[in-house]
C-alpha cells in the first residue's frame, strides 16, 4: 500500500478526534527581548509559523518576511526524562539558559516511545513521561501496568506544550521529533528496547502487536500500525499547532521512503485543517539525498551516508529544500567550530547534538562517543568535554552574523573567495570564512562600492574592525589575529 492510500485511511480514522484541542487558538506571545552579551541581537519570539522563504529557499521565514537562520544545541533528554533509576530530572531551565547565553534559536525536541531500555545500552534506561497511559490491567514486560493505546497521557502532551511555549518565549524554535528509531531494536545493536515498547503485543491492553515479526521493530507498512501512528500524530498537532515556533521531524534516523513521505503528507493535510501549518522535515536514513530533495518535506538533514565531506567540506546548498545540517547525523557525538562556519557560509542551517545531558547507560557495544584509535580515554558523552563549548559558541556566532545581514539575499559563492567559503549578496555584503586564517582574496570586481571590513573570531565571537576597502578588484585581506577567522564586508 502506498502512502497516498494510507493517508486517506488514516485521515479518515482520525477525523473522529476532536477538531482542535483545548490548547488551540492561544494568542501569539509578546516578544521578550533579552540582551545577549557579545551578540548583536537579542532573541525574539517567532512572528508566525515558519515557511520556506520565497526569495531564498535555503532558509525559513516567519511573518516578518526576514530569512531566519536556525542553529542550536539539542540533547536527548530535553523533552522526556531519560536515565537509569532513580530517574534523573532534566534541568530544562539551565538548558534554556545555556541556549540563550550561546545565542541559539533552534533545538530538536527529542521523543522516545519505549518505556525502558535502548539499543546502545544493556542497562535499564527509563523514559518518562510517555505518550500513552499505563492503565493496566496487567503488567507489561518492564513490570509496570500495561499501556492503553486509546488513552493519551496528558502529562506528556502538557510537558510538550509547556516546554515549547517556554522555548518560544526565549526566541527558540523546536523541531518536534514525531518518531524515534532508537525506540526499537536497531540492526546490529545487541541491546533491545522493543521489550518495553507500547506496540509490543505483550505491553498493551488493546491486543495490538505492531511488530514486524521477529525484528523488534514497528511494522510501518501495516495499515493498523499507521492508524495508531496517525492518532498519535493528530494528538501532537492538537497540542502544539497554534504555536509559531515549531517544526516537525518525521523520525530520528529511521523509516523508509514510503512511510516517511506518508508522515509528511499526513502532517501537511492535518495541519491544513488547523489554524497553522509548520515545516516537516526528514533526516537521512535509508533515503538518498536526491530522494529526500524530491520528497514533500520542507527541510532535510543529510546523514553521513551521503559522504564524509559533509563533516569537512559541506557543499554549497541550492535551496531545493531547507537544509539543517545536524552533527547527530554526521558524527553522532562530535562536531567542530569550523564545521559550523562552513555550513553557515554554504547555506545550511545547523544543529549540534550536545552531550549537555549525557546519553544514559553503559554501552553494550562500540559507541561513537567513547574510545577511538589514537584516543583511548575519549569520552565525549559529557557536557564539559572540550569538544563542545567551542561548537556551542561558534554556532551562536554564526547566528549573530546571520542576524546582521540581509540573509534573504545571501547565496553561497565559492567562486568569490580563495578559501571557497563565501556567503554573499554580491556588491552588497560578503561573509567569508578562513579555516586556517592568514589571508584571503575576495573578488569584488563586480562592484565599485566601498565596504566596511570587520573580522570575527569564529569561536570567541570577538569583533575586530578592519577599516574599509574599495570594490572593483580582488583585494587580498590579511587577518589581524592568529588562526581561523571570519571576514564580513558590508557596503558602506
Amino acid at each position: 500500500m502506498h502512502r497516498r492510500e494510507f493517508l486517506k485511511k488514516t485521515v479518515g480514522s482520525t477525523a473522529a478526534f476532536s477538531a482542535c484541542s483545548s490548547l488551540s487558538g492561544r494568542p501569539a506571545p509578546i516578544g521578550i527581548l533579552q540582551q545577549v552579551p557579545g551578540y548583536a541581537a537579542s532573541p525574539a519570539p517567532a512572528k508566525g509559523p515558519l515557511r520556506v522563504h520565497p526569495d531564498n529557499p535555503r532558509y525559513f521565514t516567519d511573518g516578518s518576511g526576514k530569512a531566519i537562520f536556525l542553529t542550536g544545541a539539542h540533547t536527548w533528554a530535553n523533552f522526556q526524562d531519560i536515565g537509569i533509576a532513580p530517574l534523573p530530572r532534566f534541568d530544562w531551565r539551565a538548558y534554556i539558559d545555556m541556549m540563550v547565553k550561546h545565542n541559539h534559536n533552534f533545538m530538536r525536541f527529542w521523543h522516545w516511545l519505549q518505556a525502558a531500555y535502548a539499543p546502545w545500552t544493556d542497562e535499564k534506561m527509563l523514559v518518562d513521561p510517555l505518550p500513552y497511559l499505563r492503565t493496566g490491567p496487567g503488567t507489561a514486560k518492564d513490570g509496570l501496568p500495561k499501556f492503553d493505546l486509546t488513552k493519551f497521557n496528558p502529562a506528556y502532551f502538557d510537558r510538550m506544550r509547556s516546554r515549547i511555549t517556554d522555548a518560544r518565549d526565549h526566541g527558540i524554535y523546536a523541531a518536534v521529533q514525531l518518531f524515534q528509531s532508537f525506540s526499537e531494536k536497531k540492526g546490529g545493536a545487541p541491546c533491545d528496547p522493543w521489550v518495553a515498547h507500547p506496540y509490543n503485543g505483550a505491553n498493551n491492553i488493546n491486543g495490538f502487536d505492531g511488530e514486524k515479526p521477529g525484528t523488534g521493530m514497528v511494522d510501518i507498512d501495516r495499515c493498523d500500525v499507521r492508524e495508531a501512528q496517525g492518532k498519535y500524530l493528530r494528538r501532537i498537532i492538537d497540542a502544539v499547532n497554534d504555536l509559531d515556533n515549531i517544526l516537525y521531524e518525521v523520525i530520528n534516523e529511521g523509516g523508509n521512503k514510503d512511510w516517511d513521505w506518508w508522515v509528511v503528507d499526513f502532517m501537511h493535510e492535518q495541519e491544513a485543517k488547523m489554524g497553522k501549518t509548520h515545516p516537516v522535515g526528514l533526516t537521512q536514513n535509508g533515503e538518498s539525498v536526491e530522494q529526500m530533495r524530491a520528497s514533500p518535506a520542507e527541510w532535510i538533514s543529510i546523514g553521513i551516508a551521503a559522504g564524509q565531506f559533509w563533516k569537512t567540506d559541506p557543499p554549497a546548498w541550492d535551496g531545493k529544500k531547507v537544509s539543517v545540517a545536524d552533527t547527530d547525523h554526521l558524527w553522532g557525538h562530535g562536531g567542530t567550530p569550523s564545521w559550523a562556519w562552513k555550513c553557515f557560509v554554504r547555506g545550511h542551517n545547523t544543529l549540534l547534538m550536545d552531550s549537555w545531558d549525557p546519553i544514559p547507560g553503559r554501552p553494550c557495544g562500540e559507541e561513537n562517543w567513547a574510545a577511538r584509535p589514537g584516543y583511548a580515554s575519549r569520552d565525549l558523552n559529557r557536557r564539559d568535554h572540550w569538544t563542545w563549548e567551542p561548537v556551542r559558541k561558534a554556532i551562536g556566532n554564526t547566528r549573530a552574523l546571520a542576524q546582521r545581514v540581509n540573509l534573504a539575499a545571501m547565496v553561497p559563492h565559492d567562486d568569490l573567495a580563495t578559501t571557497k567559503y563565501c556567503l554573499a549578496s554580491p556588491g552588497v555584503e560578503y561573509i567569508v570564512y578562513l579555516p586556517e586564517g592568514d589571508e584571503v582574496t575576495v573578488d569584488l570586481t563586480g562592484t565599485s562600492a566601498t565596504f566596511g571590513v570587520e573580522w570575527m573570531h569564529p569561536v570567541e565571537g570577538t569583533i575586530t574592525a578592519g577599516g574599509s576597502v574599495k570594490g572593483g578588484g580582488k583585494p587580498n585581506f590579511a587577518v589581524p589575529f592568529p588562526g581561523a577567522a571570519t571576514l564580513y564586508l558590508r557596503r558602506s
Partner: protein
Amino acid sequence: MQRRDCLARTVRAIVGGAAALPTLVAGARRLVQAIPGPEIPGRGFAPAPARGPLKVHPANSRYFTDGSGQPVFLTGSHTWAGLQEMGFPPLRPFAWREFLDMLLDHNHNCTKLWIWLQAEGGPWTDGKIQFDPLPYMRTGPGLAMDGKPKFDLTKFNQAFFQRLRSRSVEAGERGIYVCIQLFLPGASEKRGGVCDPWPGHPYNLRNNINGFNGERGGTSTVDLDRPEVRAMQAAYMRKVIDTVNDLDNVLYEAVGEGGRRDWDWWVVEFVHDYEASKGKKHPVGLTGGGAESLQEMLASPADWVGAGWNDGPFKTDPPAWDGRKVSILDTDHIWGHGGTASWAWKSFLRGHNTWLMDPWMPLPGHPCGEVNWMARPGFSSRDLNRREHWTWEPVRMAMGNTRALALRINLMSMEPHDELASTRYCLANPGWEYLVYLPEGDEVTVDLSAVSGDLAVEWMHPVEGTIVRGGSVSGGGKVGFAVPFGGAAILHARKG
C-alpha cells in the same frame, strides 16, 4: 651569448686572475668535529654538525644526505642581516650568537646568509640604509655616490669574507647549514618600484675606480648578458667558493628570486664547474618568484629549487613533491613577509624542506611604496616587520617540530601519500610508518591496509610540540582516528 659560451669565457678569465686574489681560507680549513649539541627541551634531539657536504639522497631525492647516509631534512629561519649589518648609521652589530641561539632553541638546522652587494639603499625604501661589510674594498681614489671612497673591483674585502667564513663555521659547529645567497638582483638593484639602490651599487660606473659600468643602459640593473659583467661576477663567486668550499654545512642559492633562465643556469653551472676543481661540491639552488618558472627550474642543472608565489598553491596546499629536485620552500618567495604553522606542516608532509623569512632583524628603512609587511585590506595596523609579531613564533616552533619528527622517523623511506589519509596530508612508508597532518583536527581516516600487525600511535601538537600517546592500532584496513585535543594535530603511527 649562450650560457655555455659565457661559462667558458668567465672560467678562463678568473682562473687567470685567481692568483692575484688573496686566499683567505688557506690554513683555515678544518673539518668540523661531530660533537653532540645541547639538549633541546621538548624535542629530544640535539643538532649535530654535518658529516660531509650535502648531496641528493640516492634513495629519496626529496632530501639531501651528508656522509652519514641519513636523509637530512632542512628547516630554519633566516633574516636579512644574518651576514652583513644593515640599517641607518651608526650601524649596530647584528647579534649573530643570539640568532644562532634562537635557531637552536627552535630546533632549526638551516639558515640563509644574505649577501647585499650595494653599499646603500634598497628597492623597498627611500631611506639611505647602509650595508657593511661589503665584498669589494673601497680604496678610492675618488668618492662614490654615497660620499665614501670608490670601490676597487679587483680587491676583495677580507672583512667580508672572514665574516662569511666565520659565521658559516660557527653555524656548522651548531649543526646548522648555511645557504649562501650569491646574488640578489631584486634587492641590490632597482626592481620596478620607485626606489633605487643603483647609486650605491659597486658596478655603477660612478662608484668604482675600474671604469666598470655593469648597468644595462638606463635600467639601474646589472646587464646579465655582457661577458665582462659575468667575468666580474665569476671572480666574486670564485672568491666565495674559495672561502667556504672546505665546509660541509654549505649550500648555495644562485640567485634570490631569479635573474633570467640563461644567467641563472650559468651561475649554477659555474659553481658546479668551479667546485668540481675544488675539494668539495655543494648543492646549488634556484628560487622562484622571479623570471623563471618552477618547470624551468626543474629542468635546470640546479640541485634544489624553491617554488615562488606564482608557481601554484604553495601557501595553502603545497603539492606532493616527486623529488625531481630537492625542494626547499621559502616563505620569502611565497609570501615575502608571512607564513603559517600549517604551511610548515603541510610542506613537510608533502616532501618539501622549509625556510622562514624571519624579521628577527626587521628589514630597515621607511617603505617607499606598498610592501608586503605593512597595511593590507582588513588590517590597517599590520606590521609584520618585527620579530615579536604574533605571526612568527608559531611558525618558528612548528618548523622545529617538523624537524623533531623528521629525526625520529625513517625519512629515507617516507614519501608523500595523499591517498592514504582523508586529510590528504600524509608522509608514509606504507606498512611501517605514517605521519598525518590534520589542519583542523577532529578526526582522520588513514588507510592502513598495507600494515600487518599493530602500530604505535602518538599525537603531536603542531605548534607546541607536545606529545600525547595514542596507544596502538591494528592495521589491515582503514582506521578512523580521533584527536585527543582541540585544533590541528599530527598523527604519527609506526611499527613497534
